[in-house]
């Protein structure tokens, strides 16, 4: 164990390495930024526009995703695949496409699972799916681009490898599963305002997103220890 501690690398400030991998503390830094920007979104909505999810879900969601989205693409584009081939700005550009296609997929999924259809629900659904897209699709498009094999391996086969793939995989699935569970209180007759679509689903998704981040962080720490032990052996 002593040797293990000796061999422990000094952690760099951000942890961006040349092969676009990231250390666990770097990941926690990224998570801190994304989490903070979510909090900023809520703060802006509360203090500048004096709305919240319950009173005006569309505007709040719009604020949330439009504050979160630039942060996410700026951060995740650093970790793009084969940075020598694709420039940073190209990664930014393709994640904007990813935002729209992801929003489309998320909206379709929500409607298939029973989200209400109607003109009064349309803006809410759209903004909700943009937020979900920022959680799920945008980081992946920033990193993977159109590399379908990576998409397939991470999302369909659920076999992420390396810290950055965990950083994409775990919060995305966390947000989806959290949103899925968040839909549970909707049919109950508690007559609370937050039971409306998409408020509790949003809470669930944000909670799941954060839980996914925590899970991926702990996996990273665990894996690194594990790898160290393997190396020792």
């Amino acid at each position: 164990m002593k040797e293990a501690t000796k061999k422990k690398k000094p952690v760099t400030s951000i942890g961006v390495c040349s092969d676009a991998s990231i250390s666990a503390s770097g990941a926690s830094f990224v998570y801190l930024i994304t989490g903070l920007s979510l909090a900023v979104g809520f703060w802006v909505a509360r203090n500048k526009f004096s709305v919240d999810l319950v009173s005006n879900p569309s505007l709040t969601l719009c604020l949330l995703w439009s504050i979160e989205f630039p942060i996410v693409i700026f951060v995740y584009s650093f970790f793009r695949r084969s940075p020598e081939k694709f420039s940073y700005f190209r990664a930014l550009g393709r994640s904007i496409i990813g935002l729209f296609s992801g929003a489309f997929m998320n909206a379709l999924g929500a409607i298939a699972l029973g989200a209400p259809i109607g003109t009064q629900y349309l803006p809410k659904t759209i903004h909700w799916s943009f937020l979900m897209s920022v959680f799920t699709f945008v980081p992946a498009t920033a990193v993977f681009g159109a590399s379908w094999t990576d998409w397939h391996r991470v999302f369909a086969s659920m076999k992420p490898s390396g810290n950055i793939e965990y950083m994409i995989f775990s919060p995305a699935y966390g947000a989806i599963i959290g949103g899925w569970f968040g839909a549970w209180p909707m049919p109950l007759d508690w007559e609370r305002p937050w039971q409306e679509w998409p408020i509790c689903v949003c809470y669930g998704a944000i909670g799941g997103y954060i839980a996914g981040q925590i899970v991926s962080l702990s996996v990273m720490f665990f894996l690194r220890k594990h790898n160290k032990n393997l190396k020792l052996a």
Partner: protein
Amino acid sequence: MTTDMTCTRLTIYTVAGIILQIIGLSIFVFGFFPVKPTLSGVSGSESYRDPFCDSPPNSKESEIHPEKLRLLYQELSGISSKYDRLILMVIDGLPAEFVLGKDGQPPWKVWKESMPYTQSLLANGDAIGYHAKAAPPTVTMPRLKAMVSGAIGGFLDVAFNFNTQALLDDNLLGQFFRIGWKMVMLGDETWLKLFPGTFMRSDGVSSFFVKDTVQVDRNVSRHLPNELNRDDWNLLILHYLGLDHVGHTGGRNSPLMASKLQEMDDIVRTMHLRAIDDRSHDQGQTLLIVVSDHGMTENGNHGGSSYEETDSLMLFIGLSSNISDYAAATNNLAFQVDLAPTLALLFGVPIPKNNVGVLVPGTLNSLRDYEKLRALELNSWQLLRLMQAQLPSSLFEGFSCNCFLDGTCEGLGSDISECSGDKEKQLICLFRNAAVLHGIWKSKKLTESSAVEDFSRALNAYNAFLKPASEWLASKTTEKPVYLLGLGVSAMLISCIVCVTVFLSLFKEVYNDSKDRICSLSNLLSLEEGFILAVLLILVISMGSSSMVEEEHYIWQFMVSTFYFLLLLKTIKSFSFSKGLNILGDYKVGSIFSLLISGRLLRGWHQGGVNWTCLPDISKWLEQVGSGYVKWIQLISNFLVIGLGMFTLFRTGSKRKTVRILTFSSSTCGFLVLLHAGRYGDDMFEVSTDYGATVIAKLIYLILSLSAIGAASVLPWCMLIKDKSFLAEAGDCLYLIGAVYILCWCLLQLLLQQPINSGPILLLLIQILAITGLSSKDLQVKEWVEIAALYYMGMAGHFALGNSNTLATIDVAGAFIGISSHSTILSGILMFMITYASPLLFLLSLVMYIGAKLRNHSHSTIMAHRANDLGQLLKLTLGFPCLVPLCINSILLTAYTVVLLLMRNHLFVWSVFSPKYLYVCATTLCTYIGVCIVAVIVAYTLSVTTFLRSNTTTRRLVCS
């Protein structure tokens, strides 16, 4: 292998489990919903005689002239009737607390000030009020029945009464009618449903528009001045619904409540001044009774068994009693059922036969001593008769006709004794004491002048008997025998364990043999398998919450859609990008998308449940746009159903004659259905009277049943194509039979269901075809998962057809299509088929599913080397399709039974949990029927094909 289950053992275990389940279920149902032990018939003059006298059945009583009958009753009863007329004012949903206060405290100021006249009557001693405890379910119709018949109905009584609502048991109104009373009813039309043809004049109002709190009462009161001026009636019933509506819209503290109470108070004043105090008309003495059928909760709801709901009012106005104290006039307790014997004795008619109530003591004050004792005696006799029906006659040894009067009872001295022992003996002993004391008082009355002490002893003795006897009888109708419940639940638990064990052993055998051990151990539960089990768990948990039971359709549809997404994930996972997107994969994705889209449409078709029914949905939208669109949808789905059916039939590639005949018959049927819908679809409610429609419907039934039975029995014999393997033949044959069954069932549903439901039928058919196509394209999902998913989809479809867990959504109109004469059994079967259209459709689709599986696996080695043994083959093909639905259903049934048992004191036990239990029982029946059909057809087909094959091989051997 000794650990392997043979086919026979498997079958025996399964059947034993099912039989155990049926036994357990029936024991539980009879324990939980006790069938009220009732005496049939109507009380007559025999009720004025000692119950131990063998009175000859007086058959001529019904022929006696009403007036003579009235005089006969008066003479026999020995109680002089002081009142000639009765006004019964029912205020729906008025808690007694509003008028009488609670726990000895006067009512709240706002309520008290709203009813000044009633309060002054109470204070002056002109009125006496009772907190009349109502029995649950606190809903209007059962409570009215309890008031007029004195009997407490069971839940099944309520549930199974949607066919005829008329009250056929012995009741007060019937008794009044028999002695020639003229009755007038103004108010809730429930009375008209309960007593058709009884009222001389009536004006019914509907309680349908709950928001209407004003007009509904105005419609009652507008006749009042006129009726009070007339003197041709004996009984006037006023039923005001407004207060209940106020409660439903605004709760107890609604701002409208005070003005509504004021209005009720004005009506009481009018009636009291006009009918009782005003003696200008020659109308005799009038008694005014103000009652409420039930109370209401803080929010204004009712139906349960809390104090607020059961605290109903019983207020007698015009009794010449000598109460001067306000507390004595208000702080009295009674039961709602006590109204029936009280009115019967006051107005000189026999007490209704199944009455469990006792005389309200405050009403006796105006009677003379001997009349009081006589009234109590009559009440006791009636209760004793009811007890006699439920107790062994050995307990009544020594009693004989009029023995108490003569002092000749065997073995029973004329002295009173201390009563002890078990409840039944104690009650009989109490009765004997009362009768003996009554006898003593009677004999002494003639000789001694001061018999006050004897009188009060007899009075107390009667009261000592009546109260416990009434409670005992009431508990007999509502009590739940614990040992029966325990026995039923444990039998169901055991059968559930048996089913699951059988399933697990089959599971182990199939999956440990077919794949290498390490693989199956490493991913013991794949994602879908875990999800299927999680759905089961979620369902079981959600059953404990009443709102989840009400909104159960959300769970099914959410879960089923999530399952489609998991399928999509699985399919995408199996893509290999090195080869590019293959066509097979595209086909699969397309099928899954069609599943998703049709699932969403099905979900949006009917906004089911209880709380959100007002939200827009497709069916409402279509009906709003106009009936023309519904017609178009009906037409299109009819054509598409036939088309899809034909396509499936011909896709097997067989061009034999039988297939053509089947196609012909089913298309004929389809066009007949169209004809029926086009011509007679508009008047759904008159359909049973139309001769042509009935003939067409009967023709459709005939053709459908002929083609279904014919296909199943004939097809296996003529499907011998030599160049195919034996299993592929059997698979083809089963696939065809399954397709025929599904097509027939869909056509039948298109005929029976409401026109708006033809769209969902088509969507369900599409779903079945999509999922069967998927499973035949090697979905890499285990067989039992697919079958469980089919079961879940069936349940989701059940709710998509507009069903819910309340009894109100059962489609009664469709149950009379094609039935020329009224038959409860036939229309019951049709009603069951309409309600369980979707689960049965998916269970029937298992035949097609098994066929497709067999055909696909005919070349696989495991099946081939097992195919020699029919038993093994049957076990492999039928094991999961039969066991999985049975297991799921058994788990859900057992879990819900336990939930119901835990919730037996819940507020919503009668309004939410019990109807749901009836649905669960019906689902169980539906699963049994479906599995039975599947098992029989598959076993028959496989044995026929095996037999044919063995014949040909022997023939070939002989030839060579």
